[in-house]
């Protein structure tokens, strides 16, 4: 058996999540939209089953902030609504109203967030041109991502 590479995170992204992100990004344009990724960890893989939007009332064309209170309420509601026993918080997403990848700030924020979790967190950046840029961090360290779509 091949030992899993500790620095590679497999990310499986469900089309429901992609669709939700795409729709929210289009609706918010020219401002950024953002929210939480919901899913679970399966061995060395992170499954992104769904995405939810968390409105940042102060979002601009270059900034979206995850506020703890709003985000926790959105997570609780989503978990209750979806009724899926494996769903929980596994990372963040936001949109870029331009065709650029994750910024320095973006990569730093997901690394900081990952410090509080035993498993890796995922960051999805939805670019204006429809491309998604995917990052992951574990215990504060950036990870190499191998992504698949379903």
């Amino acid at each position, binding site marked *: 058996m091949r030992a899993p590479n500790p620095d590679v995170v497999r990310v499986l992204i469900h089309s429901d999540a992609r*669709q939700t992100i795409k729709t929210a990004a289009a609706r918010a344009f020219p401002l950024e939209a953002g929210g939480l990724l919901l899913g679970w*960890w399966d061995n060395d893989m992170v499954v992104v089953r769904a995405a939810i939007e968390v409105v940042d009332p102060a979002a601009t064309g270059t900034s979206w902030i995850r506020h*703890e209170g709003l985000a926790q309420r959105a*997570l609780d509601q989503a978990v209750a609504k979806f009724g*899926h026993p494996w769903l929980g918080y*596994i990372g*963040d997403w936001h949109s870029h109203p331009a065709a650029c990848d994750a910024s320095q700030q973006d990569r730093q924020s997901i690394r900081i*967030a990952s410090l509080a979790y035993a498993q890796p967190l995922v960051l999805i950046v939805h670019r204006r041109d429809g491309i998604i840029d995917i990052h992951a961090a574990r215990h504060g360290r950036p990870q190499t991502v191998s992504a698949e779509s379903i």
Partner: protein
Amino acid sequence: MATLATHFKTALSNIEPSDDAENAQAAHAEVTKVLEADDLLVKLGVDPILIGSYGRQVSIRRVKDVDVFVRLSKAGKDLRPGRILDHVAAVLEESFPGRVTRQHRSVMIDFPDDDLSVDVVIARPCGDHWEIPQKIEDDGNARWVETNPTKMAELTTQANKDYLLYDGDPGSGVYVPMVKLIRQIRRTWVDDQPGGYFFEVLAYHAFSNLEPNETSYAKYLTVVLREIADLLIDVADEGLDDPTLDGKTIKTKATPEQLAAAAARIDEAATLAEAALGANDCLAAVKWRELLGTTKNTTTEEQVFPLPEYCNADGTKKKTTAVTQGASTVPAGSGRYA
């Protein structure tokens, strides 16, 4: 009780006619362009619009035909539909050689690459409404009949505003998704007739009768399906009221035997939905899968309702130690993304 919200969303996206929608849009645009470039049709005030399930955004995969309603806003009482249909067919034949069929009351254009056809229906104004030829005689004259093809679109839009999944969230309209699920159930449970529009109208009446206010797709579908099953029993005798024209009923090709068979099948389907609603998660999913069947007319038939990741196909829960549930708390403080 299992409402399986995530999986209903996936089921809905599995019947969404995404590729078809682009092809249908393109085909409609091509046909419109040709008709709007013809001198005679311009003189008659040609003004085509999309109608049909595709136009109302309640179509499901696969969309095989697109209806275009060609309003001739300046057409007078003396318009001979036989002659004008011949003309429309000739104009289209020039741009789509070998792909045009003059039908009894319409002209059909084939788009073989997309496995799609566009049906062109002509209409003339009559007071504040439109008329289409009902029967065209040998001399090219016709009996005209009132029609209101845009009315169903208006009713659909309104119903989708009135019935919400989440109170206060105008984006959670549940009427359109329900019509799509009902159309899919018809394809799965009913042989050919009555058709998709007939069931759409049944769904419309079911919503009007019940004024349902539920909190999940599962519950909406269950109550609406039961009401449709009940309505079907009466429809066999009394016909189905046309919500777009007072005092008229919906025409169907279904024979009384086919209507009776459909009523029996939908009664079965409604009973299955009730059982699914009352079952535990995984067993419920298996029943929803049976109810919604597979996608039709697609290259590979796919199950519409997904098997939840935590379920086995026999309705038992997976015993897995490999899975760690997503976190129940978000990170403390705030996280800034630029």
